[in-house]
């Protein structure tokens, strides 16, 4: 079981020299035959062992070197999760360069900023689509000289200088390697733990993206911490399907994989993730709450279509699971009767259900990135999926707090991770000091000084609090937390998350800072509300029509009022109950700049764009006409307009908290 995983005897000098390329070489020697990467090709899973990966990375690195890629240069990586793109990252690191993964769905214009900021001269792209985007940018990014593409499909007629296929690059590399023996090994030897290992650009809820520079030492510290915490071995399987530019993927598919030496599986395409999940059956799984939510929604929708017997069986055993499932998972005392019932449920319902979802083999599953609904969280835990939350950010390698096995609280993000120091500032902001904190923002010492104080604490910008057992609870972004006229603390995210926990509500934006009362915009979930409407024989002509339907408003009002009842029961939250709301006529979309690429609400932008609607909410109008520009995925622009009805919700008196 990975004896070199957490080798305490590793001396300090060795640690200072610990880098990803060295780790890769180590796995090539320690477990040459173990699977390192898998990818489906022509319907069959292909496996690369650690030994083979060493050879592939070496060929890519030498190829890049033959084109002039050197220590200190940055290599852009653009595409879906592909083994060869991970190899390209390792290849860049081997030469002392720094990989810069970009969000593959970003339009060309967004990429231009990063390419110029990071002074990118070399890029590795997945396919024609990404190459086209990069070629579009050759004027605005003249320094971009070499583009390597993995998939050769459709590339036959491209004649631009500097374009080269990955296979060809590797051929060049092998020739170069033979002509320059020892150069590659020397380059790997020259690397040190304090070198930059990766630059991740944060999507930035405000302003231009900033490049977060993480050193080998920081990333490996985060990787080792996580691997030790959950006792991960080289026999784990993970499915890597989240954007490579996101810190979570970097932590799981790169840092932890190279610490523990486990297997990274890449899906065949983004459409096949659910099938691939079922086929691979990962033992270690990471997904944002959205994914877990979609899974549950699809299960529930299909359950409603099932026969009466199956439905009754499902609901019966789900109530058993709700009663005792989490307790059994946590190893607490449960009566024998319940245990028997649960065992039967496992055979009839939970087992098959987990199998369908591809979660049968999961030992540890994590979610992060956004708050997860307690019901959703409980559902997975109750059917025996060890789902836990973690808390972190790009700047901290997504490694700040983890929920330990057997000590899970639904509303907290867990205890500070091993080696991490967490404290709260006077205003409630969470401050973090850990070996996994970034070196700084790329070429932005000013921005770095803003977030890392003189004592070395990173200011997360999140407002949080510790509960009695030392679990950290995140309430909102510190900057978003405001005060209402009556003096009550207004935490919009906290309210919005409560709303979003309803399957019918996809997105919500609450307003209330420096106001007398709280009002909200609601985005419905087309699938869930559409299904609800169909079941009631209500016809609708599309998103806008459905959003404005009386039935939808009634449904949303019920949700809002439940949230109000919830808020009324919480300490100090009663004044932040939602008085009025409206259902937006269009989905909030990153293409319209309303959400970030990681789908967080851009509060300020929305407040400006929909100022008319906010006015209407607060002046108590019955309805308001709005027409907005909509950008389609192919770049065309259209308009969506509607007369939006404003609806009142009933508020509850504040309840005295029982001591």
């Amino acid at each position, binding site marked *: 079981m990975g004896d070199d995983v957490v080798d305490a005897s590793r001396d300090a000098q060795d640690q200072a020299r610990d880098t990803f390329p060295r780790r890769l070489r180590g796995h090539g020697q320690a477990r040459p035959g173990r699977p390192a990467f898998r990818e*489906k090709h022509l*319907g069959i899973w292909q496996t690369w062992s650690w030994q083979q990966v060493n050879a592939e990375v070496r060929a890519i690195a030498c190829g890049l070197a033959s084109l002039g890629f050197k220590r200190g240069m940055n290599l852009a990586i653009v595409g879906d999760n592909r083994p060869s793109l991970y190899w390209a990252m390792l290849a860049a690191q081997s030469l002392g360069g720094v990989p810069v993964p970009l969000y593959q769905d970003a339009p060309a214009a967004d990429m231009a900023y990063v390419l110029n900021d990071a002074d990118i001269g070399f890029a590795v792209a997945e396919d024609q689509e990404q190459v086209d985007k990069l070629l579009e940018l050759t004027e605005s990014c003249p320094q971009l000289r070499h583009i390597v593409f993995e998939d050769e499909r459709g590339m036959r007629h491209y004649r631009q200088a500097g374009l080269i296929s990955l296979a060809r690059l590797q051929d060049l590399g092998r020739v170069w390697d033979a002509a320059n023996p020892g150069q590659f090994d020397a380059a790997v030897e020259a690397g040190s733990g304090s070198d930059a290992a990766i630059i991740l650009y944060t999507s930035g809820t405000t302003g231009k993206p900033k490049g977060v520079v993480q050193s080998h030492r920081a990333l490996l510290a985060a990787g080792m911490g996580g691997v030790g915490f959950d006792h991960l071995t080289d026999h784990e399987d993970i499915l890597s399907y989240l954007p490579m530019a996101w810190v979570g993927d970097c932590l799981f598919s790169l840092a932890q994989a190279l610490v523990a030496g486990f297997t990274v599986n890449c899906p065949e395409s983004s459409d096949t993730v659910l099938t691939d999940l079922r086929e691979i059956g990962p033992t270690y799984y990471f997904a944002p709450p959205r994914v877990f939510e979609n899974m549950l929604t699809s299960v529930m929708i299909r359950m409603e279509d099932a026969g009466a017997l199956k439905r009754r069986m499902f609901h019966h055993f789900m109530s058993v699971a709700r009663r005792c499932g989490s307790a059994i998972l946590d190893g607490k005392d449960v009566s024998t009767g319940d245990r028997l019932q649960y065992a039967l449920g496992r055979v009839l319902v939970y087992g098959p259900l987990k199998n369908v979802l591809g979660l049968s083999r999961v030992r540890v599953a994590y979610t992060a990135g956004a708050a997860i609904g307690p019901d959703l969280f409980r559902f997975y835990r109750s059917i025996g999926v060890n789902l836990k939350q973690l808390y972190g950010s790009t700047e901290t390698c997504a490694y700040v707090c983890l929920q330990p096995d057997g000590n899970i609280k639904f509303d907290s993000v867990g205890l500070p991770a091993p080696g991490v120091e967490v404290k709260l500032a006077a205003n409630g902001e969470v401050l973090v000091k850990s070996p996994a904190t970034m070196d700084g923002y790329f070429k932005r010492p000013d921005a770095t000084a803003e977030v890392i104080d003189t004592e070395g604490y990173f200011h997360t910008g999140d407002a949080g609090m510790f509960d009695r057992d030392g679990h950290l609870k995140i309430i909102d972004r510190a900057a978003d937390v405001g005060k209402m006229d009556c003096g009550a603390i207004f935490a919009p995210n906290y309210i919005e998350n409560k709303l979003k926990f309803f399957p019918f509500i996809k997105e919500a934006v609450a307003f209330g800072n420096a106001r007398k009362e709280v009002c909200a915009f609601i985005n419905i979930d087309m699938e869930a509300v559409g299904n609800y409407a169909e079941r009631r024989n209500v016809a609708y002509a599309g998103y806008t029509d459905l959003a404005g339907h009386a039935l939808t408003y009634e449904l949303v009002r019920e949700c809002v009022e439940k949230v109000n009842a919830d808020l009324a029961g919480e300490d100090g939250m009663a004044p932040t109950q939602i008085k009025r709301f409206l259902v937006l006529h269009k989905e909030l979309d990153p293409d319209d700049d309303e959400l970030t690429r990681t789908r967080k609400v851009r509060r300020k932008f929305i407040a400006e764009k929909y100022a008319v609607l906010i006015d209407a909410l607060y002046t108590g109008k019955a309805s308001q006409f709005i027409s907005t520009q909509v950008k389609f995925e192919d770049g065309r622009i259209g308009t969506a307009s509607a007369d939006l009805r404003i609806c009142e919700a009933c508020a509850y008196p504040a309840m005295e908290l029982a001591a």
Partner: protein
Amino acid sequence: MDMIQPAMNGSPARATGPVILDLSHISLAFGGVKALTDISFDVREHEIRAIIGPNGAGKSSMLNVINGVYRPQQGEIALRGQSRRNMDCHAAAKAGIARTFQNIALFKGMTVLDNIMTGRNLKMRSNFLLQALYWGPARKEEIAHREKAEAIIDFLEIQAIRKTPVGRLPYGLQKRVELGRALAAEPDILLLDEPMAGMNVEEKQDMCRFILDVNDQLGTTIVLIEHDMGVVMDISDRVVVLDYGRKIADGTPDEVRNNEEVIRAYLGAGH
């Protein structure tokens, strides 16, 4: 760097080979109804050849003559210089002609993969019994064919629906699967009967791209019937226009677009 557009417009610069299929003086009648009257045109290797015309012009009949479903009363068909009175379905298939249909003709209850595998039938050598037992040479053969089928699935980007029964798929995807089934026969000439009928704009764009990719990457000669004039003019090398069973024009898209008779046939006289 100068930008070279990926072959998204049927640029006449594209190399087409010698004549692969030559139809001369084809006439076809059903009883007293003259479906085709004295039609001659040729198809060059690697080109995209479109047959257009108003409803009832005889386009599908023409395609059916090419792959041997109908036997013309007059005329000759020369395939790779070999002349014959008429085609025969099996001979056509063996000679490397595959087709898709105006109304989708797939096995609705079978999966996408199985449907595409049926397209490989002609290439299977082992006998039925061995195939049923999945034993010996049949097993090896099946694996080889499966690989070809998977390559097509990859080519058409339908991995996600590999195991989905065709009947459950939306229309646009079914059309794509049908193209896949035709491609499974590794044809030299592909006949497409209204490949884009009933599709929305996005599906049409996808289909266009796949047709161009097939033509470009697999080197397949394509004969297609299409109603959407925009599509035809964009992707074809040469267009033949039929009206009431007669050929009224033949040439590059530009020539055809400016042809008086074509304008009259499409817009009606008196405009």
